């Protein structure tokens, strides 16, 4: 695969243990900038675990142990002097289940900029909130009810609100952990469109169970199986001419 730019995320020899169980084995993966990379594979294959290594959410799990190297924009994120708070400001995350804060739509989006001190004035903040909601394709639907609770929106709107919240701090990377698995097909289609638009500004890594989704939204695909990275490459290549038999079996529905 021809690369013009340096990959934004470089992972090498990533091992993850949950207590005595090894969940990931020597993962090595490059994730390019301003592209959508999808991680696919059967349940329990370690794709979400790998995603959570990228913003060190695994630190929250007491029994998890991460070894190996992951760097973002050339910086080792597991170096001892790394502040996870600073890291997570640069690596946003959208979760499987929409989880807006039980606050107003406005406060949901404004929270990140507020705690990171990104805006100088109320007007700046208003603009940033509007920008984020517009980017997330939600502005028109919520502009008249910015001060109503975010939890009162529909599932699809809530997930777009979470995306708006994530991009409001303008992170380098956006991680999405099965963002559509709790949504209906129409809301899913909406989010998929959105992912494609967001690619302009952000590098996106998405975990998905749906191979159709992976083929629709991503430029690159990595297939995980039983904690190993089986195959990674351009999405087109993975789905049309997989090199590994296991990939072949998975995309044709024989394992999974």
């Amino acid at each position, binding site marked *: 695969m021809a690369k013009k730019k340096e990959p934004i995320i470089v992972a090498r020899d990533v091992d993850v243990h949950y207590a005595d169980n090894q969940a990931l084995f020597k993962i090595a993966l490059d994730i390019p900038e301003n592209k959508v990379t999808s991680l696919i594979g059967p349940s329990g294959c370690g794709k979400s675990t790998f995603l959570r290594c990228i913003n060190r*959410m695994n630190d929250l799990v007491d029994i998890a142990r991460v070894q190996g190297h992951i760097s973002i924009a050339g910086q080792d994120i597991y170096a001892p002097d790394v502040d996870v708070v600073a890291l*997570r400001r640069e690596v946003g995350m959208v979760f499987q*289940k929409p*989880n807006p804060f039980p606050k107003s739509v406005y406060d949901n989006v404004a929270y*990140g900029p507020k*705690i990171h001190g990104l805006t100088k004035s109320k007007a700046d903040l208003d603009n940033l909130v509007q920008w984020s909601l517009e980017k997330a394709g939600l502005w028109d639907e919520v502009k008249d009810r910015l001060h109503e609770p975010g939890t009162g929106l529909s599932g699809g709107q809530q997930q777009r609100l979470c995306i708006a919240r*994530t991009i409001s701090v303008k992170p380098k990377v956006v991680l999405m952990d099965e963002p559509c698995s709790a949504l209906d097909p129409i809301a899913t289609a909406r989010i998929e469109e959105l992912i494609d638009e967001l690619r302009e500004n952000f590098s996106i890594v998405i975990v998905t169970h749906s191979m159709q989704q992976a083929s629709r939204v991503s430029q690159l695909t990595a297939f995980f199986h039983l904690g190993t990275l089986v195959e990674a490459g351009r999405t087109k290549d993975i789905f049309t001419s997989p090199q590994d038999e296991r990939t072949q079996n998975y995309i044709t529905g024989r394992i999974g």
Partner: protein
Amino acid sequence: MTDGTTSFLKGQKALLARHRAESRFQWTGRFAIALSLAFLIFMIGSIAWQGKGALSTTEVQLTVDLGDDNVDPEDIAGSRLEKIIKSGLREMFPEAKKRKQKKLLYGLVSSDAGFQLRDQVLADPSMIGGTADVWVSASDDVWLFAKGQVDRNLPEEDRRISDLEFEWLDRLEGEGRLQQLFNWPFFTNGDSREPELAGILSAFVGSALTIAVCFLLSFPIGIMAAIYLEEFAPKNRLSDFIEININNLAAVPSIVFGLLGLSIFLNTFGLPRSSPLVGGMVLALMTLPTIIIASRASLRAVPPSIREAALGMGASPIQSTFHHVAPLAMPGMFTGAIVGMARALGDTAPLLMIGMVAFIVDVPNSILEPATALPVQIFLWADAPERAFVEKTSAAIIVLLAFLILMNLAAILLRRRFEKRF
């Protein structure tokens, strides 16, 4: 459908038995609720019935001679007004000649009557220099008589009021010299050995100060401890050990906390005995485990997705906790506080150990002055021999319950407000 065929939509035997079991269960539940409601109504009803008598007080009208030779206008407070009351009584009932009869006669009015007369004369010095009709408090026996709680049919030696006194009281009543008033003094006086003078104010203020100290100590400490243990503390043997001990402390009898307060706060630190400060501290010790346990439970009930969302945004653990998790857990924390405070307000035993059982007449002005508390006051009055204290006891229980209900109402309103914000 013809007879003999059984529709599958109709209940079969086993299904009917299940329905019967269900309705049996529901009726048992209803019966339990009805029974507890009946007990509650019976309890509150009987207390209210007994306590209502304490809401009125009886006054006697006396004609007293406030001539210049009796009262010195320059020194009203120094004049022997008690003597004037007594001579007024003697003039109204000249038939009381013997010493014993006179003693009975003087016993018709409260021992406070002289001071009440002084206050009236001080307020209106123009009364001096003639005779005047004044109202003063009746004694507790007259008080009971006026409420019709004395049985005349009993033999004289079994009664607190003799035949002679009945004669006098009937005459006073006939002349309209007995009146029933709303018992304001009950709400504005401190405790007294005389039932007709005893009031609830000092105990009420003592309780309020004690509970304030208890709340200000236990609520912040309790929720901070809960937040630290639940959100930040590493999960290891030590934190398990602490958790077990907190749970054990919640079950420790309250008198043990009283002993702890006695030996540490009073004997080691030398804090003032009988003071609301120490009372509040002891009750705070007792309340802390309750608040910590309830707060931890409500923190655990906050969905982890909220923490993930906040941390994923780059919020620090403190920000995640105080911006998102703690506010969501607040209603549950308030519930814990309500339960703990209600228990603290009604608890007597630990206060006995730190000297709040003392006979306190003055209303405390600060948390360092000697005070008593409502439950202790109830305990003291229930123990008093005078018949009139029975009503006072019930009235004090009503005041305690009203205090409790108001306190819980405030907490529930606060909790509502927190719930509404989300």
